């Protein structure tokens, strides 16, 4: 591997004195070790980091879920207190959505999108690193609330004056992932800003706010990447479906997150400065929070599910040996789902007294969104139809996805009928519904993606028998845990209740659900252990073990830092499959010429700027706790953020030239392995 600095050919990058930026500072240039991981701008490494953090938080959220199920195993149980239970379900929901599923999707976006469109990196590599570290610090702030909570329970704060003055002593959020005002907000008049919940809610507000910045930055990056950095011939209608769904998801994020950002800032102003946006006793409107939250929250559901749909749309054709049935319709229905996703938010609010006309409108629109969703299922079925279905762990999980997602979709149709929903809203029926969509659907889809692309990411093949056992445990445990919840909901058990009396007929099925949850937990843990083990010790495999269809399979595994030795020229959809088996070959453009290809420099600045959010994120809740001078931590954090962005702007774009094996004119060898 060679590299150029200012167009002067040299042998190896690490033998050089480090390059200096425009500020005269030394740019980091490590290609291995933790310094490399902290300063990397390589979309593949960032993707792996996203994936690693997401998996960690999946386990955290899973432990929270098991604590919830343990509490509910028996009636009148006191495994945890009421407040701890409320904190557990709040953090479980928040963790799984914002720290589990979204970053795992982002891991796939990062790793795959440039490879699938034939690019060498994303449009803004340093912004990409900034998104990653902002997510990491946002997640850290949110979860740090647990440390404060346990420190409080252990009595470490008891001697402090500010602690004695606290009216409410919940440190981890106990307001639900939806955080409905005024429970999350204030009451009382004349700017008293009396609260129903403690600083946990402040942790939640600032944590979600920071995570939103990470998501927004990443989404702008991916939209720019997909629109601008496609290889020659990679027209929009030749994009792999996963990239299409990434684009739709990114657009959903930039349209949906501003709504929650506004709502969170208003709530923060209510709590911190006595504003009255949601304070009913001062004329504020709690229902406004619900509208703002759900106009974010419903598209959020599609933000979670569309990437998984994209993954399944890649896995099914590969293992059916057939191109995707109705590609334009799949793409179009994905876009329609994204569009309609903004028109159904009030179906989360059917019981808030909207009045019959809006209820009817949202009821019908919710039914309408079942149509494009059904279209996807029909087309997946059409893809399998007439194909040659090979059973592999990703294929089994993708089929499981269709099956479970279908169940969740059908119970969704039941909810769309508003009068029927008034019996289901906020009951365990809803929990069953969205876990079938988000766990049976999204998690199985993401697991399918992990098993599918793991050989590409690490060049190693996950152990198939363990993968099958883990998948079987996940599917069995999942159905055992959430299937009975349909009944529990119809039997009248409300959500978010930390206990229940014997005598309501809920005992048996809650116990069954708890057993299922543990089986599910074992399955997920086994799957993750298998993957982590594979990453380090797994059996090496070929570059194209599945007979893949899209460009990433034409590359060596693991993928070299420059991705494509020569920029590919694409002639058709499923370009690599056609290249292997058909008549249309992938062309090559020697874009680097003699000088090699341009690679972005590593940088400390994204990490530095993101670190500002860490301080600000801790400072805001500490201010709310009444810790003296905590406001200065916030100011310092904003200062760090400002300095980080300032130095980032002034260090110059950098970059270096890298000679790829193909620069001499011979195309990089691609390896094709028959199944």
């Amino acid at each position, binding site marked *: 591997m060679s590299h150029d600095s200012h167009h002067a050919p040299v042998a190896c990058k690490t033998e050089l004195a480090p390059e200096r930026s425009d500020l005269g500072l030394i740019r980091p240039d490590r290609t291995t070790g933790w310094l490399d991981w902290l300063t990397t701008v390589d979309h593949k490494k960032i993707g792996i980091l996203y994936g690693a953090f997401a998996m960690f938080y999946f386990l955290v959220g899973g432990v929270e879920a098991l604590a919830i199920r343990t509490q509910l195993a028996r009636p009148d149980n006191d495994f945890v207190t*009421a*407040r701890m239970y*409320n904190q557990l379900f709040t953090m479980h929901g928040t963790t799984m959505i914002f720290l589990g599923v979204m970053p795992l999707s982002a891991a796939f976006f990062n790793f795959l999108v440039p490879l699938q469109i034939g690019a060498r990196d994303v449009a803004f590599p340093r912004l990409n690193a900034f998104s990653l570290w902002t997510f990491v610090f946002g997640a850290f702030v949110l979860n740090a609330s647990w440390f404060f909570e346990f420190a409080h329970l252990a009595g470490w704060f008891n001697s402090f004056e500010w602690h004695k003055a606290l009216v409410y002593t919940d440190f981890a959020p106990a307001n639900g992932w939806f955080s*409905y005002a005024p*429970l999350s907000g204030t*009451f009382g008049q004349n700017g008293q800003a009396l609260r*129903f919940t403690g600083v946990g809610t402040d942790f939640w507000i600032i944590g979600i706010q920071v995570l939103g910045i990470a998501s927004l930055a990443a989404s702008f990056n991916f939209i720019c990447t997909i629109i601008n950095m496609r290889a020659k011939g990679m027209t929009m209608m030749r994009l792999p479906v996963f990239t299409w769904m990434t684009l739709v998801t990114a657009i959903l994020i930039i349209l949906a997150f501003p709504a929650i950002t506004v709502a969170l800032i208003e709530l923060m102003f209510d709590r911190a400065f006595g504003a009255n946006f949601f304070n*009913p006793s001062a004329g504020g*409107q*709690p229902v406004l929070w619900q509208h703002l939250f759900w106009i974010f929250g419903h598209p959020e559901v599609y933000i979670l599910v569309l990437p998984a749909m994209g993954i399944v749309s890649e896995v099914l054709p590969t293992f*059916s*040996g057939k*191109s995707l049935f109705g*590609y*334009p*319709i799949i793409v179009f229905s994905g876009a329609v789902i994204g569009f309609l996703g903004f028109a159904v938010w009030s179906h989360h609010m059917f*019981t*808030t*007294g909207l009045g*019959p006309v809006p*209820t009817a409108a949202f009821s019908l629109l919710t039914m309408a969104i*079942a*149509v494009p969703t*059904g*279209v996807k299922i029909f087309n997946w*079925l*059409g893809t*399998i139809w*007439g194909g*040659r*279905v090979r059973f592999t762990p990703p294929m089994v999980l993708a089929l499981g996805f269709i099956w479970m997602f*279908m169940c969740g979709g*059908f*119970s969704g*149709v039941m909810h*769309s*009928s*508003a*009068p*029927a929903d*008034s*019996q289901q809203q*906020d*009951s365990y029926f809803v929990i069953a519904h969205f876990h079938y969509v988000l766990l049976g659907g999204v998690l199985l889809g993401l697991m399918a993606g992990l098993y599918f692309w793991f050989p590409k990411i690490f060049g190693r093949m996950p152990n198939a028998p363990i993968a099958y056992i883990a998948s*079987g445990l996940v599917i*069995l445990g999942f*159905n055992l845990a959430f299937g009975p919840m349909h*009944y529990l909901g*119809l*039997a*009248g058990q*409300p*959500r*978010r209740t930390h*206990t229940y009396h014997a005598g*309501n*007929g809920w005992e048996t*099925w809650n116990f069954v659900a708890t057993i299922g949850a543990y089986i599910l937990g074992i399955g997920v843990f086994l799957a993750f252990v298998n993957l982590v083990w594979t990453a380090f010790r797994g059996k090496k495999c070929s570059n194209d073990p599945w007979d893949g269809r899209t460009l990433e399979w034409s590359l060596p595994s693991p993928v070299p830092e420059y991705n494509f030795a020569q920029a590919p020229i694409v002639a058709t959809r499923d370009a690599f499959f056609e290249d292997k088996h058909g008549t249309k070959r992938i062309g090559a453009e020697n874009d680097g010429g003699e000088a090699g290809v341009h690679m972005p420099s590593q940088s400390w600045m994204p990490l530095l700027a993101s670190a500002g959010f860490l301080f600000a994120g801790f400072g805001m809740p500490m201010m709310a706790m009444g810790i003296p001078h905590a406001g200065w931590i916030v100011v310092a954090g904003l200062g760090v953020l400002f300095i980080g962005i300032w130095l980032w702007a002034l260090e110059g774009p950098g970059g270096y030239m890298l000679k790829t094996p193909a620069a001499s004119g011979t195309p990089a060898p691609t390896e094709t392995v*028959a*199944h």
Partner: protein
Amino acid sequence: MFSRFFSRVALLAAPFLAMIMVGCSKADMTVRQSTLDPKGPVAQVQYDLFMKTVWLVVILFALVGGLLVYAVIKFRFRAGDENKPAIVEDGHGNPLIEIGLITASIGALVIIAIPTLTAIWYTDDVPAESVPTSKLSVWYPRVEGTRENYAKAVEEQVLEVDVIGKQWWFRFEYPQLGLTNDAKHSVPNEMVIPKGVAVRINLRSEDVIHSFWVPKIAGKVDLMPGRKNHMWLQARETGHYYGQCAEFCGDSHAYMLFRVEVVEPAEFAKWVQRQKADAAPVVAGSKADKGKALFAAKSCVMCHNVGGHFGAGAFAPDLTHVASRKSLAGAWMDNRDLKEQRALEQKTNNTESSVAVDPATLKANLIKWIGSSGTSHDANGKPTKDVKPGNRMHYYKMFNVAGLNETKQTFTAEELDCLAEYLLTLK
């Protein structure tokens, strides 16, 4: 090969099928808060609509799921397939099939869309046929004389009930009947309504969002602070119904239950009269008398109303008839003998039947509830486990208002006993 594969599929499917079958046979559809056992027109409409969606979905699921299983088995990779050309030519889609399926999906949705629309308007407010003429005057006290007239009038009219939600209990007021908080006659946690009468429920909240849900009688509507929501309901059968707050409302959300007692109209008239009566005087010098003094001394009186004894409180549940109610503490504590209750439910196979209040259970509940509620500490200064964590009984810290800051009360066992004896006289 086929049979081996099929047996594998069957092996995988068997636990799920077994689960569903066992589930359906074991699941009781008439449990206390079942939505599948409607006992009034609103719940009935909601149930019928739900069942329409169920049948539609079951048919679609069988169709699509069946095709999926068929396709996966039929088009699986077989020995020899590797010799066929890799590219399947006819695999790119078929517009006619696509359009046909989209049209069919829309058609299937119309089947449930139409009854959904009619049900939205039906469940929104008391339908016209339930309000033949406006004869509201019969509701006012002057109808007392003739019970038949009263009962007949009750049957014909719409009864208004205001439901006020607070952390973590419900207050019921009957403005037409003079049973209101302002008139010192409100009804906490146990709503009583006459059988067969349309009831308009006005939903209000005094703090956070709550939700009013009696699954057997009607689906839920939220109590939004700062808004006036409404719903209506009607019960076809008398009995003791169970309800619960369905919107997360803080620490003790799980403890925010309520009951609905549906009685014959004549019985309802008697109940109204009883609610308006004041508490009987207590025997001087008795334990109850001591308890009454404690009630004032320990500042219970600041929040609780006891008609005829104390009239200052308007904030907390009205205790004038506390000993006549089947539940305590936001209906979390049951004042009946639960063994007897279970036996009755099993015998009658009717979860709406109820035994009477058991004084011993009630007394034990009262002592437990007063003794470990809202106090972070007991008489010895040790932390107690609250019956309802976060509740505001004799602990005002959350209001942080001058004069009410940290009004903490503690009780000795003897004091608790006296207080309970006093409350037991409030029938």
